[in-house]
């Protein structure tokens, strides 16, 4: 147990690293996911096909494969993802600015993977809007864009909160995989650092890592349960 008094800073840094990676990936995936969702419901068939293809591919491929691809193909495409070294942001989120690209690669892989699930969550929100709303909007003569902007989306985003939340929770947990691809300074990286390299007892280290993840996932899950119950109450009233 002395690992906690000796190495608390390692745990803390790992925790911060995971939080940073997840924040980046969450923002990226929400933006991209919204775009793909718009593609998937657009009236133009080729755009719909692109959206559907994206979701089908990334929903059915393991994240491991996506990460392998990011690590193998991005360097070959001549990119070390340096476009993520955004001035200002890289001062706050230090790993973005480092020379080693692994943190950026892992973030990209996590983002493109989560995007597909965000898209589906948003779409399930749109699908949950009562049919009469869209019909009424159309019979008033609203176009597709007007219909989405003024009628469907304002209702859909509320209905999408719970599925989006479970996507984000899953993403938090998926971020653990990054450590297996040489990303240092995340929660799972702590295991490698303390157990494999410094030979600390494995059990307390795992306990610390698990607690780190539970701090992130459990309160979010409880919050979602509360939101869901509140929404059900409103719906049945």
């Amino acid at each position, binding site marked *: 147990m002395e690992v906690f008094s000796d190495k608390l800073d390692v745990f803390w840094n790992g925790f911060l690293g995971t939080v940073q990676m997840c924040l980046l990936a969450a923002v990226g995936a929400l933006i991209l996911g919204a775009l793909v969702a718009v593609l998937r419901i657009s*009236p133009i068939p*080729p755009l719909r096909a692109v959206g559907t293809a994206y979701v089908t591919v990334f929903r059915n*491929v393991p994240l491991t*494969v996506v990460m392998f691809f990011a690590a193998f193909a991005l360097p070959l*495409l*001549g990119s070390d993802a340096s476009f993520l070294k955004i001035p200002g942001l890289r001062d706050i989120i230090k790993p973005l600015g480092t020379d080693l690209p692994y943190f950026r690669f892992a973030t990209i892989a996590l983002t493109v993977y989560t995007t597909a699930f965000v898209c589906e969550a948003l779409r399930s929100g749109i699908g949950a*809007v009562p049919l*009469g709303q869209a019909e009424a909007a159309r019979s008033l003569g609203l176009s*597709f864009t007007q219909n989405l902007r003024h009628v469907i989306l304002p209702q859909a985003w509320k209905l999408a909160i719970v599925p989006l939340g*479970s996507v984000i929770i899953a993403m938090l947990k998926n971020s653990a995989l990054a450590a297996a691809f040489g990303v240092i300074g995340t929660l799972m990286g702590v295991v490698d650092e303390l157990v494999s390299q410094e030979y600390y007892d494995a059990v307390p280290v795992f306990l610390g890592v698990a607690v780190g993840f539970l701090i992130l996932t459990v309160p979010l899950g409880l919050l979602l349960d509360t939101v869901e119950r509140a929404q059900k109450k409103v719906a049945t009233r």
Partner: protein
Amino acid sequence: MNSVLYDAPGPRTRLITLITSIVAVPVLAYAAYRWIYLPLDHYHQFDGKIWAPIVNPGNQYFPMVWDRWKVGWLNTLKAAGLSIVASLVIGSLLALVRRQLLELRMFRMSPLKRIGLFGGRALTRTWVEVWRGTPVVTTLFFVFMVLPIWGVDFDDRLWFLVIGLTLYNSVVIGEILRSGMDGLPAGQREAAFAVGLRPWQTSWLVLYPQALRVMLPSLISQVVVILKDTSLGGLIISYEEALGVSKQMVEAFHRYNIDIGIPMYFSVGVMYIVVNYALSKLAQYLQRRLSKSGYKPVEPAAATLAALPEESAAPTL
């Protein structure tokens, strides 16, 4: 599905669509050529040399590669199958036990028993939250590193993978089934009590079978998750599943200065898509069949924009 959001395309819209498609296709093709094909070609990623072991039956490595993949996929299916069965059985038990503990509250009992009951509920709840909130990667690594220390060791790494996946997925499946049972109309449970069934009989004979049916889409998407998660076995505990053998082959070829990383991972990615896509199609088919007869999970009032059956399953990763 969302055709309710816009009118059927008229002549003008059809023309615009046609023109955009005609313009978009060459633009996309050029972009793919310029930013994907050219850089990859520059690094000789399209050379016959690195694709031949996978696509050319005449190549000397071809039988070896596909032989390894056969082994890998069989191992993947073995691990996935065992984990799925174990997760379903243990998850069902967990759901039934949690329901039973909840039902027992309404009985009269000694304070000591009541404390025990409360402890039981707290314990199962904690168990669920801990394994559900911890990444599978962590669970798997934990099982692999710590179980041998505690004297539980296996020669075949398959069992570490199965235990790790089952710890996580049994809890998830348990929660799916429990929320399925809770979501049934209250009359089901009340009627069962009225005809004199005990609480556990009510859960097991009346609620559980219906929950299985209602929750089938979510269960199948969880099955897809299990299948995808077996790929962690190759990476974390060096179990020889489909992705693991691909990784081994990439490293083996690398020693002969043949870099087949991209073809290998691309091909295995395609295989995963095919297998999982087939699984989710099966889910849709099953749901359509179930919705034709018997109990309908959705309240009749809720007519919504949702039309595709796959979407009624909560998206899980």
